[in-house]
């Protein structure tokens, strides 16, 4: 699917559709992936998101944005949701949903935080927590399309158990097709941990990405302060600001 077709075709109004849960995949203790069937889904690009709307019996509505976790595949849309302790929407999605349940969704949305491989340059990804979700859609698309574009992911999480998609990421990195994956665990590391054990800084970014490549596009996704630190760090290393694309989410975000 061409990027232009997806973005240009979005001149149509955005409509709410009824998504049905066809598979539930536990990812970590607090994170689950929802595989949804969305009738007449127009397709999407890696990095795009959807709006989810829940309506209570009394008519009260709550709406949130969630990144799509996998590339386009017919009517199949995969969301990965982290349960937030005081969340209004995420506990319902991450804990109470059952197979066959339905909820309202609209999308795909977004054209800025999108990568489909068409610009050819190296892909430098920085993820904080569940900010890995849209980046995973890019890496899954890269793998599925047989791309050998050099790519690197630096993924920061609190503990080893909080790393989403860890087995799949390790497997993708083991394909030796030009993808490197580095983790940093900021709160607690398992015995013998060989990855980083601190918050992201300029030195770590420089080690993982090997200095600024003018052809590289960087995508940074995570909580606001994480994104600011990582994006400022990349610009400090010499990345052009326009090639550092950012997506922030807050406490009411996902």
């Amino acid at each position, binding site marked *: 699917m061409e990027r232009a077709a997806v*973005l240009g075709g979005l001149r149509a109004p*955005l409509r709410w559709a009824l998504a049905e849960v066809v598979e539930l995949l536990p990812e970590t203790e607090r994170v689950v992936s929802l595989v949804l069937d969305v009738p007449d889904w127009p397709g999407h690009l890696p990095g795009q998101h959807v709006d989810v709307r829940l309506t209570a019996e009394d008519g009260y509505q709550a709406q949130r944005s969630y990144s799509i976790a996998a590339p386009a595949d017919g009517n199949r849309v995969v969301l990965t949701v982290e349960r937030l302790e005081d969340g209004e929407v995420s506990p319902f999605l991450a804990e109470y949903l059952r197979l066959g349940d339905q909820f309202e969704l609209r999308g795909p949305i977004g054209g*800025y935080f999108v990568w489909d491989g068409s610009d050819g340059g190296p892909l430098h990804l920085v993820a904080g927590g569940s900010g890995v979700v849209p980046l995973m859609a890019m890496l899954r698309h890269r793998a599925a399309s047989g791309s050998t574009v050099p790519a690197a992911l630096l993924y920061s999480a609190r503990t080893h158990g909080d790393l989403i998609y860890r087995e799949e990421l390790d497997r993708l990195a083991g394909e030796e097709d030009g993808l490197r994956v580095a983790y940093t665990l900021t709160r607690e590391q398992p015995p013998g941990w060989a990855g980083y054990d601190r918050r992201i800084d300029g030195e770590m970014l420089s080690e993982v990405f090997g200095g600024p490549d003018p052809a590289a596009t960087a995508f940074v996704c995570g909580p606001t302060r994480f994104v600011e630190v990582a994006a400022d760090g990349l610009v400090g290393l010499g990345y052009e600001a326009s090639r550092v694309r950012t997506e922030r989410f807050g406490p009411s975000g996902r």
Partner: protein
Amino acid sequence: MESADLKLDGNAPGGELREIFCAEMTIARSTCAACGAVREMAELTVYSHAPGTIFRCRSCEAVLVRIVRSGERIWLDPSGLSCLELRTPGT
């Protein structure tokens, strides 16, 4: 919760913007009427915890766009922008 946690960007409100403009607005280029900074809307600072959505300039912090909704109505105040550049469909 600190205010830094509430500061988002123009990616998340992409759906709300499309509802109003019927176009993918995260890649629309905005010009700040106060300082002249040109950025894609996704790059703007956004606060959406208020009863509306506020877009601010990432360079000078001026309020660029305000969107408030109530029931079946939407109020759009774009007076902080001097220009908005959209892509025509199919390009």
